[in-house]
């Protein structure tokens, strides 16, 4: 039992802000759901100790470790320590999606990332790492983004071809979709 609490703590830690679902925990621990819920309860209780700085929240069906409210002042102090702000994880992810998929619209970026990306886009624009490279066809004519010369210079790339290959994992999901399309397409057309 003690050990299970340690495992849940470790899983919550590595998933950080993304959190984990009850199903994921149940699956990893290979225990009935009620049992997992019990472990979570115990962990919550253990975290109530004043020597602990963290607590568990449940947001959108995901358990997540967060710092206790009282810690806010110290976190503010930590980030006040002179340390230049660099690109956030969100901005870096967005930049990566643009670099690999350009020209790409905001909607497509958000589709890949699963979250709003407006702020990240405006940061990247203001830093000159991305630019508008055109407009999508059709209604709406969404802005399409691409990376800039400054992007290549900053990361020491001669051209975009020098980006490491990542395609295998991205293509996998789109291949599935394409297969699905042809399957359905054939059915429908044959019936016409």
């Amino acid at each position, binding site marked *: 039992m003690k050990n299970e609490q340690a495992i849940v703590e470790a899983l919550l*830690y590595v998933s950080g802000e993304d959190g984990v679902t009850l199903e994921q925990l149940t699956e990893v621990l290979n225990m009935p759901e009620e049992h997992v819920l019990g472990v979570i309860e115990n962990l919550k209780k253990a975290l109530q100790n004043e020597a602990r700085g963290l607590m568990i929240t449940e947001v959108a069906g995901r358990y997540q470790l967060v710092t206790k409210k009282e810690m806010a002042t110290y976190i*503010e102090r930590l980030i006040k320590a002179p340390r230049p702000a660099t690109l956030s994880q*969100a901005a870096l*992810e967005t*930049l990566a999606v643009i670099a690999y998929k350009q020209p790409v619209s905001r909607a497509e970026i958000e*589709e890949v990332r699963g979250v709003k990306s407006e702020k990240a886009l405006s940061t990247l624009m203001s830093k000159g790492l991305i630019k508008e490279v055109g407009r999508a066809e059709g209604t709406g004519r969404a802005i399409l983004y691409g990376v800039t010369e400054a992007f290549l210079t900053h990361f020491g790339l001669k051209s975009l071809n020098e980006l490491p290959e990542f395609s295998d994992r991205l293509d996998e999901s*789109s291949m599935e979709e394409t297969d699905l399309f042809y399957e*359905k397409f054939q059915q*429908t057309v044959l019936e016409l």
Partner: protein
Amino acid sequence: MEYKVKIDAFEGPLDLLLHLIKKMEIDIYDIQVAEITEQYLNFIHEMKELQLDIASEYLVMAATLIEMKSRMLLPKPEPLMPDGDEVEWEEDIDPREALIQRLIEYKQYKQVAEWLKEKEERQQLFYTKPPSDLSGYEKPREIQLTGVSLYDMLAAFRHLLQKKQWDKPLHTKIQRQEIPIGERMNDILKQLKGKREPIPFDDLFLYPNRTHIVVTFLALLELMKKRAVTCVQHRNFEQILVYSADERFGEV
């Protein structure tokens, strides 16, 4: 000596030499040039017979060894110190010296590489998390790009792909997130309802999302099959117009 090894099991000629020295149980500081050269050439020869590609580095080393062997066999010019087997040259340099130094140095790096390998394996058991987004705690600051490397961006991307991977169901139930075609058919009919004018084909594809596009297209085909809509294109490449069947018939 009977042993067969693949040449790509070695990191290069120095690695191979260290292996041979070890096999021959000789002191690295007192390499018998004639013997090691023979062993080395045997090895290369064997590789050739097996028709394996031998990197040029191995051949360069073979040449070096042969040259060294011949120099050792040359009659000594005035030995400075007639002392045992030691061959002292005018320049006071043992021809083996440079090679021995290289071998010793390489061996040390090889050991460090082993040490690093152990450290790496150990370290891989420790998992951590990306730093939390603390932007909520601070006033907006001027963002600096110094210190942001390509590696940071790739790491972020890897993390993104990983997140997507985590969120896949643990059991591989093949369950695709789909928009039901029936639902999309109803949507299209609703969009057409009560409209005198036809809808341009493009207007049905609202989101640049692959699934949405595919499902919309299939829904449209279904509707045509059921004769609930009619599609008209006046000329090649012109916008396709989608009519609600009622309206179209009403018109006619």
